[in-house]
């Protein structure tokens, strides 16, 4: 399945940084923690690309999900994560310290009717959007306060 939303980032705007070591991190954490997280997610491969004020680290997790993490160049912190695949990635690892906030937001999003469908969690410090069905999941999460200035959230795919 082709990766969704790649066209949102102009390919010409990406500088492939093949020399950078394999890297992966958790939402809100420093880029320096990335290799440890890659191991815990049993990531099979990674690639790195650079946008305007941020870098994108991509990997395929052991569950087969493609995960992209967005690192702000100014702070070195992961401000966004996007995923897509037949199965979901480990959200404890992907969300890190935001995991409990995600769980509480997801509980609220199911409403009092046990609603099933896409979930949008929109809080001041965390935005999560996710959807799909078994064998085809997708989603993204970002921390608005950590994003590079003037960055369009539509870029996060």
């Amino acid at each position: 399945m082709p990766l969704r939303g790649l066209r949102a980032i102009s390919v010409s705007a990406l500088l492939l940084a093949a020399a950078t070591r394999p890297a992966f991190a958790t939402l809100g954490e420093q880029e320096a923690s990335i290799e440890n997280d890659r191991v815990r997610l049993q990531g099979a491969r990674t690639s790195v690309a650079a946008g305007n004020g941020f870098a994108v680290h991509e990997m395929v997790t052991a569950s087969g999900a493609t995960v992209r993490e967005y690192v702000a160049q100014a702070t070195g912190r992961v401000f966004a994560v996007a995923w897509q695949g037949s199965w979901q990635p480990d959200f404890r690892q992907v969300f890190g310290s935001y995991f409990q906030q995600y769980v509480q937001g997801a509980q609220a999003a199911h409403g009092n009717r046990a609603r099933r469908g896409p979930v949008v969690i929109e809080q001041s410090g965390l935005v999560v959007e996710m959807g799909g069905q078994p064998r085809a999941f997708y989603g993204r999460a970002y921390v608005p306060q950590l994003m590079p200035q003037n960055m369009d959230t539509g870029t996060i795919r």
Partner: protein
Amino acid sequence: MTGGLLRRTALTVCAFSSWLLITACNGGSTPVSPTPPQAIAPAGPNVIPITVNLGPLGVADNIAYTSVTICVPGTTTCQTIDGIQLDTGSSGLRILSSALSLPLPSETDASGHPIVECLQFVASYSWGSVRIADAQLSGEQAHGIPVQVIGDPQFPAVPDSCSSTGPSADTVETFGANGLLGVGVFRQDCGSACSVAGGANTNMYFTCPNTPCQTIAVSLAQQVVNPVWMFSSDNNGVIVELPPVATTGQATASGSLVFGIGTQSNNALGTATALTTDLDGLFPTVYNGRSYSGSIFDTGSDALYFLDSRTAGLALCPDANYYYCPATPQNQTATVQGLNGKAGAVSFQVASADTLFANSVLSAFSNLAGPNPGQFDWGLPFFYGRNVFVGIESQSTPAGFGPFWAF
């Protein structure tokens, strides 16, 4: 797009009180013959009734329920369980343990340890043992199939790799049904990703000789299976047949789930156009001139979930950001496309969820919608007022091999 035709057809369907319709087209441009009136199959050996109602909790919206009879394998010790949600978005039969009174045998691995499953949904998971049962759906039978018993008290310890999906849906209160009848386009719930030792770790099948439970590879034959595929006949797909629903909502909507495609006099394809999907069951939807990949048809989603407030021009509900609440009902159109080049134009309405839900006795809504940024999830409202065929992967039908959708 065929705007003129759409408007005329929409007005026709308006007279039937539904705002959601499909006009099948070739290549998205040439209209085929006018859509004949919808015919919902009466009771029969390959038909089970489905009903949208408030469900076992008394609060459900747009969930189609049915009942299934399951038996201890090879015996006449059986139980009929109602309040089972019809789900074209997954494959496999699942029962909440609190609704089950039968002593079903466990499915075991090569070492004799019971197999336990974690089924991950969008932002929840259901954990429970895999057990063997005979399933009877009207005159159709699936013998000795693996089913999931959700919330099985024998396996209370949920591994972290399962609960990482988010909140649990292991009780009737959190699941919203007594079980799930998954009759999607796939034969098994997982497929080859779970059957290859050392393959992708889908965090789906486990054994628990010790705590925590460990993931294992499970053969296709041991995976929780789409029961339709296990029937001796009428096993190539299903038809979801639900009537139109008034724009103001209805207390109930009753229709049929028909087994087989082109195998009996009551399941002919007729004028329906088949749209094939990719191997993940996905297809594109074109909206306002832009194509969005990764679309799904899903009776298990309670609304038409598409795009976002800004792109769709629809206000979110002030008290629930998962539904749209436009000040007045808005009419919209989109085109769904098969990978085989066939397409269908969809005309639908979005009304305010707050207005629809104001009357708590109503459960069926043809114009309930919500956001799904960058994506289209055609939930149960899509199915009102038309017969929708679900072609199972690799199964032969008069429309070719699945996976496909037809209407």
